[in-house]
């Protein structure tokens, strides 16, 4: 059952089949799902939910990019 569900996902091939920058695609479901559910649990109207989700998604992307840059800089000195 689990294996079948895996095949339904966008990344059914598994992480070992993805290399380099392709792995950043894992960020897409995280940002979309998190922002959508976060918005949906705070509003009832879909227009507001979508607007909230876009705002939260943008914030998440900026935060992730910031952490990435900090981690990149730190790695340069190690």
């Amino acid at each position, binding site marked *: 059952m689990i294996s079948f569900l895996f095949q339904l996902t966008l990344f059914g091939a598994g992480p070992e089949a993805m290399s380099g920058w392709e792995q950043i695609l894992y960020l897409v479901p995280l940002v979309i799902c998190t922002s959508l559910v976060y918005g949906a*649990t705070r509003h009832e109207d879909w227009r507001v939910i979508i607007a909230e989700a876009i705002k939260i998604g943008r914030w998440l992307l900026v935060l992730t990019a910031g952490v990435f840059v900090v981690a990149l800089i730190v790695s340069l000195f190690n």
Partner: protein
Amino acid sequence: MAIEDEYEFDLDLKNRGAAALLAWLVPGMGHLYQGRTSKGIAIFISVSLLFITGLQMSGGKVVYCSFRQPDIRWQFLGQSFVGSAAIPAVIQNRVVRGQEAAGETIRPLFGGKFSPPDDHLERKVWHADYHAYFQMGTLYTFVAGLLNMFAIFDAACGPMVYGAEFIMDETDDTDDTDDTEGEEVW
């Protein structure tokens, strides 16, 4: 029960306990029970996709229940908000620990899905096999569980609207009574 939001809609939460239980068992099911179909479907797809993605990237190893040294799986507390995964994990834990205590050969159910590692060495093998994806899978399933916690709250109590500002009725300035009721602006 009717709750008025900024768009003046009536929201029938029906049996709130049943809705919360259904939302815990299957993400979005509580909303479907309340007739909030589009929201239920969105929550089901979002939480399930995130949870399955986390399982997929880690070979399905990251969701298990273990609270015994040296493997204190505190992340399971977050993952357990997805009941359909938490229940088999707890059953596996009870089955495996029971077999260990009886000195029997460990034979987990469901082909070993949601089963805790046999020992510390097997857990190390999992980490070695999946490297960072073990941690990422844990994070994804943990976040999915926390998101479903919000969804359970939403099913039980309605949307958690925030940012409310209350304007005091300025015409009552001369009134000595502390009237806190006023127009709500969102």
